[in-house]
């Protein structure tokens, strides 16, 4: 009897053992991205050679790419500074992907969040920093979230596809920002061009490394980024809401059959995604720009889509992808300075990396020696 019990206990234990991630999964997650980056750099070199850049300059530019992204305190500071908004907005998009929503609207949500943050940032003098900065961030997140929730609500209530509605909301956001920036209480005194007042010092995310060198721009937003990654990981994988998001994203019909409220999940997921994009906008105006002007979103909301895809919609993957994109941005700048290579090339390399990561089979075909032999499925 007791022997029997021991046997069943052993059975439970083995059932509760996680299989080690199989080699293919590990290769897809780690090896493929590395190879993708390598191939993209190689093809980038070919592109440079094709545009009459000599080989020495190609070498110099890649050295600059590395030194400009991780080669000095300033380089690391710039990499992180660029990575923060990309990661925040990328997390939002990844969250949307997990819940089955393709949110193209991070750019608009970022603009709206940033505008709300800037207004909060300049219009409340006298607040202590410990209150003002969180308030700015909160208002930015809230505004971005509400703006995105419009698309979510349209989807839930009328079935309007979020890809279309978020693209339209982006266009509205661009013009809305143009308009807002000309309102008397927002536009900077003495300026006739669309530019907002500067946020008060109490609303600025403090810079972290100015004691080393006053040019180091890294600011407290980096903690926001890491906090957001941890929070979204917790939300997605440890909470009931995250379970509902993931279930709805993987199989909305099964989620409905399981009694989950699809409409609520859609609105909440879009709202949260927008809040993260809004937070990215607030982070930019409060930590980097100090003001808003037309196009201060700088395409971050679109790059964030690539970051989310590259990160396989996993919070830590998004962080790594955000860091990689930040590094490419910072290093690309150095490429221009040191080698005089066009910044457009960085765009090409980024695009190539995404193409290769999106096509793991292509990478496997190009580097057959880098991977274990593909096993044909033994299933019937």
């Amino acid at each position, binding site marked *: 009897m007791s022997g029997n019990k021991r046997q069943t206990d052993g059975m439970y234990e083995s059932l509760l053992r996680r*299989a080690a991630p199989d080699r293919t999964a590990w290769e897809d997650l780690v090896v493929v991205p590395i190879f993708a980056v390598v191939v993209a750099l190689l093809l980038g070199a070919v592109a440079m050679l094709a545009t009459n850049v000599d080989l020495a300059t190609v070498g110099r530019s890649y050295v600059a790419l590395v030194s400009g992204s991780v080669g000095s305190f300033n380089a690391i500071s710039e990499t992180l500074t660029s990575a923060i908004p990309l990661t925040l907005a990328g997390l939002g998009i990844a969250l949307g992907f997990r819940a089955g929503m393709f949110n193209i609207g991070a750019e608009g949500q970022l603009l709206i969040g940033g505008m709300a943050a800037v207004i909060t940032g300049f219009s409340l003098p006298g607040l202590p920093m410990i209150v003002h900065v969180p308030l700015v961030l909160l208002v930015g997140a809230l505004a971005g979230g509400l703006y995105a929730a419009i698309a979510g609500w349209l989807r839930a209530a009328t079935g309007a596809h979020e890809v279309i509605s978020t693209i339209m909301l982006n266009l509205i956001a661009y013009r809305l920002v143009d308009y807002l920036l000309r309102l008397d209480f927002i536009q900077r005194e003495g300026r006739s061009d669309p530019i907002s007042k500067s946020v008060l010092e109490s609303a600025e995310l403090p810079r972290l490394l100015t004691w080393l060198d006053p040019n180091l721009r890294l600011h407290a937003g980096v903690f926001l980024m890491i906090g957001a990654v941890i929070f979204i990981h917790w939300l997605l994988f440890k909470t009931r809401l995250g379970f509902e998001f993931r279930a709805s994203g993987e199989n909305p019909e*099964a989620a409905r059959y399981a*009694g989950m409220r699809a409409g609520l999940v859609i609105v909440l997921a879009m709202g949260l995604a927008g809040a993260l994009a809004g937070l990215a906008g607030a982070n930019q105006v409060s930590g980097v720009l100090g003001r808003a002007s037309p196009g201060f979103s700088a395409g971050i909301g679109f790059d964030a889509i690539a970051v989310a895809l590259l990160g396989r919609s996993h919070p830590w993957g998004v962080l790594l992808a955000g860091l990689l994109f930040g590094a490419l941005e910072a290093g690309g700048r150095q490429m221009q300075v040191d080698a005089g290579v066009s910044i457009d090339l960085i765009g090409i390399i980024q695009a190539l990396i995404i193409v290769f990561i999106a096509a793991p089979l292509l990478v496997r075909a190009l580097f057959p020696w880098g991977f274990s032999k593909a096993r044909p499925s*033994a299933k019937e």
Partner: protein
Amino acid sequence: MNVELRGITKRFGSFTAVNNVNLQIRAGEVLGLLGENGAGKSTLMNVLCGLYAATEGQILIDGNPVSFAGPGEAIRAGIGMVHQHFMLIPVFTVAENVVLGVEPTGPLDHLDLVQARAQVREINDAYGLEVDPDALIETLPVGVQQRVEIIKVLFRSADLVIFDEPTAVLTPQEVVEFFAIVRSLRDSGKAIVFITHKLGEIREISDHIAVLRRGEIVGHADHPDAISEADLAELMVGRPVSFDVKRNPNPPGEPLLEVADLTVLNNNDDVAVDDISLMVRSGEIVGIAGVQGNGQSALVEALTGLTRVAGGTVSFKGKDITRASARERHRMGFAHIPEDRQRTGLIPAFSIAENMVLDSYYDDRFSTGPTMRWDVVNKAAAHAVVDFDVRTTSVFDAVSTLSGGNQQKVIVAREMFRDTEFLIASQPTRGLDVGSIEYIHSRIAQARDEGDGVLIVSSELDEILALSDRILVMFKGRIVAEFDGATADKATIGLAMAGRYEGAAA
């Protein structure tokens, strides 16, 4: 065309899917190939139609050894396969689908659809297929789509036609029509291979039977009458199988679920369920028989709170629950096995553990505040896996890696591994192997014996007959007949399912 498989072996790495199989396939005969899911039937046939190269062995056509480098060569040699999952383009017409890849072209290399249509009609007439060459695939019922697949194969002049689980997607009527087509193909001299795990069908249609288990031929019958269903089942499963579900020893108890004048509309605002009244008592299995598409799905969705009702009431233990949500009903003790395990029952990419709590994750047992208690979930899942005989190595395995039978057992475990009062099971064993069917039926009967009310919806009349204490027949959204499960007669129910029953309706 006569085809012989001689000593065919197919290995994937160290795994032997097919081991030393010898088979004779003769013109003008139907060879029934019987085996459970995973027995190697499809692998064997994929070798025959050129998708896989055999590791060992030989294929001989009319005595001459052949080898195929790919499916194209097998097709040119006259071997065609009708796959279980159709390969048709929904927005193309029948004729366009049929000629796809081998399009007849005119002198200027334009697509000659006139000729294509004529050829489709020719095949139609020759075998009595009755398919309109100009119909769009998406507008056709599944049974007709299957005939389009058959036309495709014949259009490519196949002399050997392989059917992979052809009846899995068909209604009983369609099965009858399908068998007529198979017979007319056979009578015209084609060689037919019919792959299935359904015992009744294989005995009805085959001239010879071969049984495959774990990649090996474990039994032959030169004539279907030479072997009993029970013997076939034992050969296939490897142990004696019981098909009789024990009847309830106890009389049914109090009324549990009462439905009065229920009307449900479908998405197009057409009436799907038309003024239905029914009642299920505790300790009773009520079976709803009917050809698929007669309102059963809408009825189940209405009873489980997944769709709004247009009229009438549903009450449970005397309490009106017409407007209660799916979750509220779940909390009252409803269990629901949905009809389509891949689409609505499971999230294939999720782990077994996650699927086990798909509709109870919010419960206090599995979560505190906003956070999930995954350790508790995983342990509960492990117990459910053991209790419900789900064959897996770990509860963290994705459900998509399980066989159909084990996937269904995950759903049954999820729905029944708790105190339930009322079970609605929709097509609970569709597409499953005999072992899984037997097991799931026994669990449903066990729930009944423990006092649950059970409502079974199935288009498999055998299943209804095996389980039900009472049988209702649904036709065009209405309940047209009621029978006592112990005395019901298959033929009469079949008439009612076709809307031709004149007896007293419930």
